[in-house]
């Protein structure tokens, strides 16, 4: 097999451990456009911060796993690295060269390929699969050494690829509709490997497949990696799969990487509270599973349009750090923080509560009584007396319609380092910064 970059031809194995892909402060914001109405009202744009400043290296020959829940931005990272999306900030270097400085990306595109999640929609339904696999060869004008008859060489190359991924050459003239999902994903792999790339982004490559077929494809990917000396970025939400195939793992949450660690270490000794919760949440195929006590994360992922200040995980974190001098249980502190978040989002139905109170009693209920009712509805844990009073006072301000005063009153006492400072580091959590 020929390669166009002489440096690789000389001694690829010597360069293991060197960074092939370097990502620095990569950012991808989707601005859904500012409407005329917004402009008239003076509102600025509020972009979706899909990827918000991620940095990592992928070393030659390794598989870096990127894991996270839906909407955390992991697929956008993959697509932005490959320049299928252009980043709004930050840089990506491939083999030492910053991509932004390359005028022509053709060489890079030849060397960096992608395999998508859904095999049914990533192949042209009206093109025989053999042609789909041949297309990259034609586009990049392979063979580059110019020897032999190009059409024949390409035909041979396609046959070689299709057999390598476990299909037969008799199937080359068939259309995608005639294959199962697992077979189509094999064809996608053949197409991605056609130009003998160094780097492949695998974007949830087995998520659409059944577990028995998933195992076939994972084993194939692992075999191909050692055979062709490939470097993978493996994007998945499935921690079992990630563990099986990856050397190092980066965990993403709401557009940021919260922890990076070697696979073994991440699974045996997770540091970040989010990583820990994620691992704990996965149901094990094990007889003892029923007895295992899972304390799942509360709540949902916040909107990437308006991520929380400081640490983005703090709205769901089971280990938020209370301010110095405030001696309080985590559960109570969590309850107070939740009330504060709702005040900040102005998400407390004061009117409904007032109306409900007015129905049961004579006359307009006072702010104190509305606040007491709100307190009962919003706080379901027993708070120590001084905190109970403080929160009541805050809710009284809410009942009076003074949201900002309420927020300020509670902030003074309960502001945590997790909301003021953005954590950094391999494990981006304030618990690990001291």
């Amino acid at each position, binding site marked *: 097999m020929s390669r166009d970059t002489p440096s690789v031809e000389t001694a690829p194995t010597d360069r293991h451990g060197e960074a092939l892909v370097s990502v620095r402060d990569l950012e991808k914001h989707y601005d859904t456009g500012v409407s005329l109405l917004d402009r008239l009202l003076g509102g600025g744009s509020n972009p979706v911060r899909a990827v918000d400043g991620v940095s990592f290296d992928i070393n030659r020959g390794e598989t870096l796993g990127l894991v996270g829940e839906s909407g955390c931005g992991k697929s956008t990272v993959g697509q932005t690295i490959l320049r299928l999306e252009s980043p709004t900030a930050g840089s990506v270097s491939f083999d030492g060269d910053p991509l932004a400085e390359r005028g022509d990306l053709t060489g890079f595109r030849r060397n960096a390929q992608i395999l998508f999640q859904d095999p049914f929609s990533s192949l042209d339904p009206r093109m025989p699969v053999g042609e789909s696999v041949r297309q990259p060869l034609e586009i990049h004008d392979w063979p580059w050494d110019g020897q032999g008859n190009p059409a024949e060489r390409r035909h041979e190359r396609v046959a070689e690829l299709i057999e390598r991924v476990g299909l037969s050459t008799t199937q080359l003239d068939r259309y995608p509709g005639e294959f199962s999902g697992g077979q189509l994903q094999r064809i996608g792999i053949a197409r991605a490997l056609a130009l003998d790339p160094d780097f492949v982004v695998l974007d949830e490559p087995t998520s659409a497949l059944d577990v028995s077929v998933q195992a076939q494809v994972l*084993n194939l990917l692992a075999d191909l990696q050692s055979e062709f000396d490939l470097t993978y970025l493996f994007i998945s939400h499935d921690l079992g799969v990630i563990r099986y195939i990856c050397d190092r793992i980066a965990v993403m949450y709401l557009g940021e990487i919260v922890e990076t660690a070697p696979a073994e270490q991440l699974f045996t000794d997770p540091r970040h509270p989010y990583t820990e919760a994620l*691992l704990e949440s996965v149901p*094990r*195929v*094990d007889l003892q599973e029923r007895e*295992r006590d899972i304390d799942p994360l509360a709540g*949902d992922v916040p909107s990437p349009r308006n991520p929380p200040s400081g640490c983005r995980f703090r709205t769901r974190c089971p280990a938020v750090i209370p301010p110095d001098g405030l001696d309080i249980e985590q559960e109570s502190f969590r309850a107070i923080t939740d009330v504060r978040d709702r005040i900040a989002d102005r998400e407390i139905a004061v009117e409904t509560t007032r109306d409900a109170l007015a129905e049961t009693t004579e006359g307009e209920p006072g702010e104190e009584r509305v606040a007491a009712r709100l307190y009962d509805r919003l706080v379901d844990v027993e708070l120590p007396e001084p905190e109970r009073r403080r929160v009541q006072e805050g809710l009284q301000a809410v009942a009076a319609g003074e949201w900002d005063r309420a927020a300020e009153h509670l902030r003074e006492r309960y502001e945590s380092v997790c909301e003021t400072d953005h954590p950094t580091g391999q494990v981006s959590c304030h618990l690990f910064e001291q």
Partner: protein
Amino acid sequence: MGEPILRVEDLTTRFFTEEGQINAVEGVSFDVEPGEVFGIVGESGSGKSVTALSLVDLVESPGRITNGSVWFREPALAARIREDDPDTAAADGEMVDLRRLDDNERRALRGTEFAMIFQDPMSSFNPSITVGTQIAEAVEVQRRATANPRAVRSRTQGFGLLKFLTTSMVPTVDYVSEESRDRAVELLDTVGIPDPASRATEYPHQFSGGMLQRAMIAQALATEPSVLVADEPTTALDVTIQAQILNTLGDLQAEYGMTTVLITHNLGVIARMCDRVGVMYAGEFVERGSLEDLFERPSHPYTEGLLGSSPALDNGDRRLQPIAGNVPSLLDEEMPDRCYFADRCPKAMSECLDKPPEFDADGSEGHRARCYLARDAYDPGDALPEGYFDES
């Protein structure tokens, strides 16, 4: 084994499509005891969802349940039916056969004693009605059914000019009563939705996926059902949300002693929730037994294969043992007259070319497998020659 609350016998559901007859569910039998969680696990296209739909009689055209019975324990009804007709086939002891009851009886029973949770909460709610109202509606149906068991019709049933005219002329007539609304808020609280009173007034799009799945569970609880059928209830959710929902389901199950039939493709979910499990392949139960039977001593090579191909969280070094080949077609004309798994089976023998019967397997009572290997030890000498199925 105690007295089952649900006994499925030889259930067969087929779809009569333009391409031909599809044997989605073929001769499925199992018992479910009161208060237990029975799991059905299988890959896509194995017929597990159609089995769920068949239980609650929601199979839609071109599909039809062509054979079998779904026995449900309802002593009072069984006695009444026998009084009306002593020779009835619809009652057996304390059990009644849902498929042989007349339509009204069946609807009354199905609506109140059975509830179902679907995979995709977003498409299971009406987007233009508030969540609270939709749950209250289910409560109202139950309330009216108890008041007048013979006439159960919700406003969601029936179309036509008359209905259109009455609703447009008297729009203020509210189907849902105030008590039902209050009950809906209570239910939302039960399933762990914070601030349920104000969430009840919101529309489905204002809920996140996890919250909406909780709301669907609340709706299912509205009729205080005896049997809950949950079809992939957490598949559309992220893993942290999945853990929340499974905990909620587990708590409710313990609290109400609800019998649950849980359908999933995820062996981890099975391990977390189920007492006994059936494994489906190509429309059939290939093995069923306790969780321990399946995990510790699987008899059917397909069960072994499923376990071997699931990546484990606790051990990253084990190489996965996939099952070769692909999930088979369920089109009648393409289904061979042999064990459907034989062409993917690493231990296929010449006997497997006949249809294998079901055998009692080692382990607990009720551990059965549709495989000769459940009865006989495997002898590599009996194996079919390699490449036997390549031609066909």
